[in-house]
């Protein structure tokens, strides 16, 4: 069985069938990631795409720790998703092709592996998937 671990504790609820991003709220200001010492607040899982771009080259490593190389790197998209009444969250997007993304489209939170360690452990991060063509939480592929 593949071992899966979150990239860090305290970013999203895990393990969970319906993971949520862990933000915080203090004096009416909502933050993500959670502000140290502030009361935590789980964020909504659905929103709309505010803007996006893609990452066509392997990010400098470190700090990027994907187990790929400049040759095997698979481009991904990222952007900001507007969570109604909360904030804009920056995230990877599961759809890598900018031509298939549009501002305002519904998106929902998923948790996905972004790299595999030498011992086979999959490392998980959060991402947003187009809400129209996604079922489940995306972590059971």
């Amino acid at each position, binding site marked *: 069985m593949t071992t899966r671990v979150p990239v860090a504790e305290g970013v999203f609820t895990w393990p969970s069938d319906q993971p949520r991003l862990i933000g915080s709220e203090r004096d009416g200001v909502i933050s993500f990631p959670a502000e140290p010492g502030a009361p935590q607040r789980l964020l909504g899982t659905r929103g709309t795409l505010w*803007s996006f771009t893609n990452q066509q080259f392997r990010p400098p490593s470190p700090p990027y720790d994907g187990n790929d190389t400049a040759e095997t790197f698979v481009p991904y*998209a*990222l952007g900001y998703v507007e969570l109604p009444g909360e904030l804009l969250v920056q995230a990877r997007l599961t759809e890598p092709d900018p031509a298939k993304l549009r501002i305002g489209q519904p998106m929902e939170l998923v948790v996905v592996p972004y790299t595999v360690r030498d011992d086979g452990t999959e490392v998980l991060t959060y991402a947003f998937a187009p809400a129209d063509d996604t079922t489940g939480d995306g972590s059971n592929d």
Partner: protein
Amino acid sequence: MGSHEVSNPDAIVGWLGLTGIPVRGVFNGCATGGTSLQMAAQAIRHGEADVAMAIGMDKHPRGAFAADPSAVGLPSWYGQTGMFLTTHFFGTKATRYLHDHGISVDSLARIAAKNLRNGSITPHAWRRKPMTPEQILASPVVNHPLTQYMYCSPDEGAAAVVLCRADLASRFTSAPVYLRSSVLRSRRSGAFEMQSPSLPLHRAPSPTVDASVAAFEEAGLGPDEIRVAQLQDTDAGSELIHMAENGFCKDGEQEQWIADGATEITGRLPVNTDGGLIANGEPIGASGLRQVYETVLQLRGRAGERQVPGNPKTGYTHLYGAPGASTVSIFSR
């Protein structure tokens, strides 16, 4: 004295002479050059000195600016998962801006082509090979919608600006250029800024807007009185957006401006006459002072093949950088 790669720039300029005068190192992201200029001007304004020099220098390796996110107070996972980069901010901002204001990607390519063409007639530029908009559009995408030649690159370079009290200028030159204003502003809550894992729902103007408004007010000039401008063009989208953020046109008017050639050397507001960052790269300590050098050459009528016609008397320089800082300086002769 501004630099990113040199941790103590004072230590390596000893050959300028060791005189005991105050020397300050400054780093303020991509706004470093404008910040050192502003500090030199303040030293004169406050009576600390009659003459002051702003120096900038950097020598960035390929892939510069890779760092641990903890250096800027962000969690390690932000870097591990490939989100701690500055470049994708520009793609994200451009995607939204083009969408909101009905601007085509062709305008981005034309801006990059204009800057490379201006660089081709600037002897000290770094990229001197002109490219067509079609070639620029066909180059590899870096961060949608921006392609390789729509971006500047880190490189190396140095520049310096000597300032003195205005009433002393005639001692040193017969063609003084006056610094009418020099303003630094940082981001407000709600500004769309890089290195932000999240942002509040409310939007605030960019620090560029705040710096520009204050600089125009202090100079007693308006955008329609500026005859040559150097605007931060980290990428072609930045130049396009900065045309509006600095008050030269309304959001969305850029499409027509670019189509008309309004920002060409022969246009009504020449922008980045030496090719800007796209042709000169961005040694971040020096870049803003290069803008001043170009502006001074233009106002003195000494810019050679790239001289703006019509004897320009006013110039404008603008920087913008992480994590949300902007400087604007206005010059006249």
